[in-house]
């Protein structure tokens, strides 16, 4: 049997398959549909200090090769997350990463500081695996992308959060920058333990009958198989620029896609849009990856990381 374990900042995951933020709720929603403890981890829906209802409808538009979404960071807010979601997550049997978003640096700090306080009360066996800072949501006016678009604000934000959160800290970057390597280096220098690439790409679809954009924000985040080549390129560029691990995400649908991301330099991957059509897809990918590795005679997933042979 090939060994699927991967090293991941200070963690070791049983396999590289995790569920992406915004596509698995707070875990409980999918717990009956796939065995969470057989995955590498899960990333929660973004948590903001205040409860958010999200954007008006329509929020989703399916396109030929992907999906546009304009959810708008709908979430119950920090207090409700800590009271209603966190206790269950602590016992769900899989490493949990809390995705954090905000309008201002204070917002991020508030959420992370609170999570740090909660951690000090939790037993070591049920601690969170880490925080993922969302500095790349394209769907709200101040969704953090203002922090993720330039190195200066990104550095300031990561340093600030680093000051109040001692656990593993990941930064989810946007592909909408001229030089992703520069952003990756900025996040690493500011104290990030890892990077997640990529968030959705702004896209648009128009209804010819009504002449209306098909999502309420006119442009919205594009995901799914269409963006996989973009994501792979960004992961490859970022992974070469930094020493911290990179988590790859974007259009992953099959175990072979996972292998591609590992080769490009990702230490783990997140499955997002694919879970909508088939909630247990990520779990099936574990088996698909294993089968591919055995076919190829690959002994361990770790040895695939960054093993692409560039021209």
């Amino acid at each position, binding site marked *: 049997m090939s060994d699927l374990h991967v090293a991941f900042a200070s963690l070791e995951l049983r396999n590289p398959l995790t569920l992406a933020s915004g596509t698995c*709720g707070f875990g409980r929603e999918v717990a009956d549909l796939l065995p969470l403890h057989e995955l590498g981890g899960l990333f929660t829906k973004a948590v903001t200090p205040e409860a958010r209802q999200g954007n*008006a409808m329509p*929020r989703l538009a*399916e*396109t030929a090769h992907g999906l546009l979404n304009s*959810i708008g960071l709908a979430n119950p807010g920090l207090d409700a997350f800590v009271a209603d979601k966190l206790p269950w997550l602590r016992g769900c049997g899989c490493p949990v990463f809390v995705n954090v978003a905000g309008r201002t640096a204070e917002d991020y700090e508030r959420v992370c500081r609170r999570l740090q306080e909660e951690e000090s009360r939790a037993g070591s066996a049920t601690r969170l695996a880490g925080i993922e800072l969302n500095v790349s949501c394209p769907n709200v006016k101040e969704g953090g992308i203002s922090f993720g678009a330039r190195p200066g604000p990104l550095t300031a934000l990561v340093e600030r959060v680093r000051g109040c959160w001692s656990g593993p800290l990941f930064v989810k970057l946007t592909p909408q920058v001229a030089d992703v390597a520069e952003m990756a280096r900025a996040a690493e220098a500011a104290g990030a333990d890892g990077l997640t690439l990529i968030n959705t790409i702004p896209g648009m679809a128009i209804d010819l009958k009504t002449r209306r954009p098909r999502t309420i924000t006119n442009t919205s985040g594009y*995901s799914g198989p269409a963006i996989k080549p973009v994501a792979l390129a960004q992961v490859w560029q970022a992974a070469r620029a930094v020493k911290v691990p990179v988590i790859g995400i974007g259009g992953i649908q099959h175990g072979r896609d996972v292998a591609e991301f590992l080769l490009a330099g990702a230490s783990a991957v997140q499955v997002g849009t694919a879970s909508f059509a*088939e909630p247990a897809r990520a779990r099936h990918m574990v088996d698909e990856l294993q089968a591919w590795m055995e076919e190829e005679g690959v002994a361990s997933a770790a040895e695939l990381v960054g093993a692409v042979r560039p021209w």
Partner: protein
Amino acid sequence: MRECRPLGAELFHVLLDREAGDALSPAFAAGQFAQLAVPGHSLPRPLSILRCSSTVLEFFIRRVGSGTDWLCGCKAGDLIPVLWPLGKSFVDQLPPGVESEELLLVGGGVGVAPLIAFHEQWPGKSRLLFGHRDAVGAEACALMQGACQPEISTEDGSVGLHGRVTDLLSAVLAEEAPMPRRILCCGPEAMMEAVAALAARHALPCLLSLETLMGCGIGICVGCAVPMADGTMALACQAGPVFSAEQVVASRPPTQTCSCVGAKA
């Protein structure tokens, strides 16, 4: 896929063989839906369940886009991943102690499916009013409705009352003899709005099975938020698709085009 029987005018009776080990529980309550995964599509298609036995799951659908087009092109034996039963049913949203005699079931087009299901699961004296575009729609429905005996309207006047189902409803509500005390409704959005308005005018509680653009169907994509009258948003896939008419805000975006909780594309 067991069989996809064309009924004319883009209407189909879809029968799926159930596999041992269905993902969720084997029973369903009328108003609940199933999600059918479509190859090459990011989102599954939500279809209101017409009927289910221990071996077969049935749907009454209209072909409206690439997803239902694929489904209607499936051959016997094709495998279709299905997640069901999902969402809140009519019974979930009814107060306890309701008798079927009190109920008026109002359906339009393929939106009759959950109402037929309701009538079969809760047989009794509830009255059914079904509206169709034309004789083809009415005949297709007649093949689906089993023992139901609905009063019918068609927009072209070919069968039953010439007009819309809301005309039928108005006539029923104008009758003197025992008034229904509650309406259950599923159909095109404009029809449901008209039915809800009529219900409100007669101070009758009304349940609507919303046709809402839906994503995952299980609450993880958060794509089907419906504005509630109290200013909050509720997910149609979890809090619905059956809502009470007073709960939901009347005006929804004009991009939602088709029938019942069923497929939009």
